[in-house]
C-alpha cells in the first residue's frame, strides 16, 4: 500500500459526516439525552472517532509496497 484505496476513503468520508455534530441542531431534545454523563451527540462523535481509529488500524495492517517488494527479492 502506498495510500489508502477508494473504499477506505469513502468510509472515512462517511465517518467524518457522522462524527461532525452538524445534524444535532435539528434534534435538540435527542442531543441532550445522556449516558454515563455524556450527551448522546458527544458519544456519537467519540464513536465515529473510535471507528476512524479502527479503520486506520485496518488500513495499516496492509503491508506497504517496499515490504512486498522486499518479500519478492
Amino acid at each position, binding site marked *: *500500500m502506498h495510500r489508502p484505496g477508494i473504499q477506505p476513503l469513502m468510509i472515512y468520508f462517511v465517518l467524518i459526516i457522522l462524527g461532525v455534530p452538524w445534524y444535532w441542531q435539528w434534534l435538540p431534545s435527542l442531543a441532550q439525552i*445522556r449516558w454515563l454523563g455524556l450527551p448522546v451527540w458527544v458519544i456519537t462523535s467519540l464513536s465515529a472517532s473510535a471507528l476512524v481509529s479502527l479503520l486506520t488500524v485496518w488500513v495499516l495492517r496492509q503491508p506497504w509496497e*517496499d515490504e512486498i517488494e522486499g518479500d519478492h527479492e
Partner: protein
Amino acid sequence: MSEHLVPFHWGEISVIAGYLMFLLLIGLIGWRSRKANTMTDFYLGGKSTGVWVLLLTLYATQYSGNTLFGFTGKTYRVGFSWTVSVQFMTSIVVAYLFFAPKLFELSRKFTFVTPADFLKHRFNYRPLTLAASVVMMVAIANFLLAQMMAMGKAVEGLLDIDPYLAYGSGVIFLAGIILVYETLGGFRAVAWTDAIQGCILMFGFAALLFLMFRQFGSLESATRLLEGHSPEKLNPPTWSGIREWVSYLFIVAIGCSLYPQAIQRIYCARNSTTLRRSLMVMACLPLVTTSVSIIAGIMGRAYLPDLSPEQTDSLLTILCREVQQETLLGRWLVVVLFAAILAAIMSTADSIILSLSSMLTKDIYGGWWAPSASESQMMLVGKRCGWFFIFAGVSGAILLRDTTLVTMLDRKLDLLAQLCPAFMVSLWWKKLDGQSVFRGMLVGIVVAIGLAVLGHAKPFGIHAGLYGLTANLMMIFANRSRIEAE
C-alpha cells in the same frame, strides 16, 4: 483561588530530581551506544528505531504540555464542543497514511536526514528547499520558546521561593538537562528519554482520570451540576462552531503531520513494518488520552465554575491543588502528574531542538554556506547549533516571562499547512515542479499570515491557514497551466 500547587516537600522533590538524573543517565547510555560519528547516526539514531521506542517518541513528541494544560482549559471555556480534539488528534495519523509510506521508502533509498532532503531530491529547486526549511524553523522555533516558558511556569508553581527566581532557575536547570543528554546521545538519547517520558505521560493521564473521579465523583454528577449553572456547555456546537470543528480537523491533520520532528521520526524507523505498527497504536491513543483532558475540563467547569478566562489555562494546577490537600495518596499522585507534565514539555522541547539544529546544519550551513563541509565539521556545527537554540530559548523564555504566545503559536499550523503541496501532493503529482510549489507556498504564506495580522485568524470559523492553502493550490494550478500551455 491559587493557581499554584502546594509546594513540594524534600521527599517529593527528590523523586522528581531522581527522574531528571535518570534522563541524564539515558543520555550517557545513548552516547555509549553511538555507532558512527555521522549525521544519520546523531540525528536519526542510525535509522534503527524499533516499534515501541518509535511509538513512544512519536507520542511524546505529538502530545505537548498544551495537551494537558491547553486542552483542559479550552474544555472549561467551550464545554463538550472540545470533543473535536479527540478527532483532530486521530486525524494526524490518518494524514500520515497519505505520505508516510512513500516518504519512508524514499528516505531509505536516498538517506534523507532532514525534511528538506526530500524536497531537494524531488524538485532540485534551491529556493524551495531553503524557503521550506525557513518556514519549518520559524514555525517550530516559537513552539520551542513556548515549551521553555512552560518549564519555568511549572517550576514556579512548585517551589516556595521568589516566583521570578523559581521561574528562571527552572528554565535554566531543565534546559541544561536537555542540553546534556541531547549533546551526548543525539537522537538515541532523545528517543529513549521520549520513551520514558511517553510512559510517564500515559501513566499521568491515568492518574489524572483517577484523581478526578476520586475527588469529584462520577461524570454523571458533574454534568448534572453543569446543567444547573452552565447548560450551554452541554450543547452541540452552533453552525459557526461546526465550521470551526471541520477547520480544526484539516488544519491539525495537515499541520501536525508536517512537523519536521514528526517527519524525521518517519525517517528513523528500522523498517516499514516498524513504522506501520507504531502508527497502528498511535491511531488509538487520542481516545484514551485526549478524552482525559476533556473530562478534567468538564469536571473543573462543573465544580469550579467561577474561574476567570486567564485562570482557565491553569485549571489543571488548580484541580491538582484541591487533590493535594486531601490525602497522602492524592499528594503522591500529583507528583506523578507533575512528572508527566515535565515529560510532556521536555520531550517536545528536545525533539524540536534536535530538529532545528539538523535543519540549520544540513539545509542552511551544509546546503548553502559551506557545501563542501565534511561530515565531522557538520556534526560539530550541529551540536553548536543545538546549544545556540537552547541558549536562545532560555534567554527568550526569561525575557518574555509575562508575554502570552498563544497568537504566535496559532500561526504555527497556518504556516506548516503551506507545506502540504511540497510534501503530500508532490508524491502523487509527478509533473508538479519546484517553481510552481515555491510560488504557491509564498502566496499561501502571504494569505495566511496576512489574514492573521489583519485580525482575521479564523474568518467564518475557518483557520487562516486553510485560506492560505487554497490560494497556494490555486497558484500552483495556474502556474502549471501556464507552463503546460507554453
